[in-house]
């Protein structure tokens, strides 16, 4: 697997991008939470925020954003917290992620099964 620029820049870039903030808010997003822009970028906005808003004009998952930005998933989650707090994005959370890691109900799993069979 080819690594992104992260390996070269190391923790310093992460520090700059996140402003050294805590990771506490990460739990607000799952890796497969789908992000949708609710506004256009404005002048002076942090470049990562601009990229996210452009990328998410149609829904895109947190993990895809992470791949396109070449930033670790948890750094992207911190960036997304800012955008969510200011109403610039909305988040569509996975229905299946239940506390305790239980499986979704049979209706959902049946739909998954049938959809895969029909691929």
């Amino acid at each position: 697997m080819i690594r992104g620029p992260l390996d070269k820049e190391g923790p310093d870039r992460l520090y700059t991008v996140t402003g050294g903030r805590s990771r506490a808010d990460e739990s607000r997003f799952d890796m497969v939470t789908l992000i949708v822009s609710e506004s256009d970028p404005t002048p002076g906005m942090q470049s990562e925020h601009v990229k996210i808003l452009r990328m998410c004009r149609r829904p895109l998952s947190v993990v895809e954003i992470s791949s396109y930005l070449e930033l670790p998933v948890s750094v992207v989650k911190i960036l997304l917290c800012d955008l969510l707090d200011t109403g610039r994005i909305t988040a569509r959370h996975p229905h299946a992620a239940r506390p305790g890691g239980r499986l979704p109900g049979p209706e959902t799993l049946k739909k998954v099964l049938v959809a895969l069979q029909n691929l």
Partner: protein
Amino acid sequence: MSTALPGGAGHAPLRESASNGLKIVIVGGFGVGKTTMVQSVSEIRPLSTEETMTQAGIGIDDASFVRHKTTTTVAFDFGRISLDEQMVLYLFGAPGQERFWFLWDRLFSGTLGAVVLVDTNRLSDSWYALDRLEHHGTPFIVARNNFTEPQHTLEEVREALDLPPEVPMIECDARKRDSSKAVLVALARYLYSLSTNGSAGETTA
């Protein structure tokens, strides 16, 4: 395989109505065919990314990205399949190495289930993954990627891996879309049967 180009090109967005992301993980040793399988069924070119954790963050989860702290990085790749108007299934190819499991809860809580991809010549590569999946209570099936003419029956593999009888096993060729699809169908059928409390394999749906 490479990461995506920056900029607008190549960002394959989802349909407007997409609202429910689902996860399946393909776990296995190095070179067993995880990326190949993701690639053969994904609707997008497989992407890769990474998650980092500070050494201090292992297990306590309150670290911040402060300068000069050592970070550990785990890389993984993934693809996706839009299942219907709302549901999008994400397939993750995950290395089975030890440090990866520290990140399991952060990355893979809510995962529907896992495919343990094995190569019969290197069965011992999968013992640790099987143990960890059991520990996390993640339902899984075992798929044998047939690189060469198989030398063992699936029952022999089951015995060697000490798998309970209810865990489904399947053979595959990860390079072939239909074969990889059949693996996902086998996992979905198993998950469905677990959710209806029926015994595995009896569902005809």
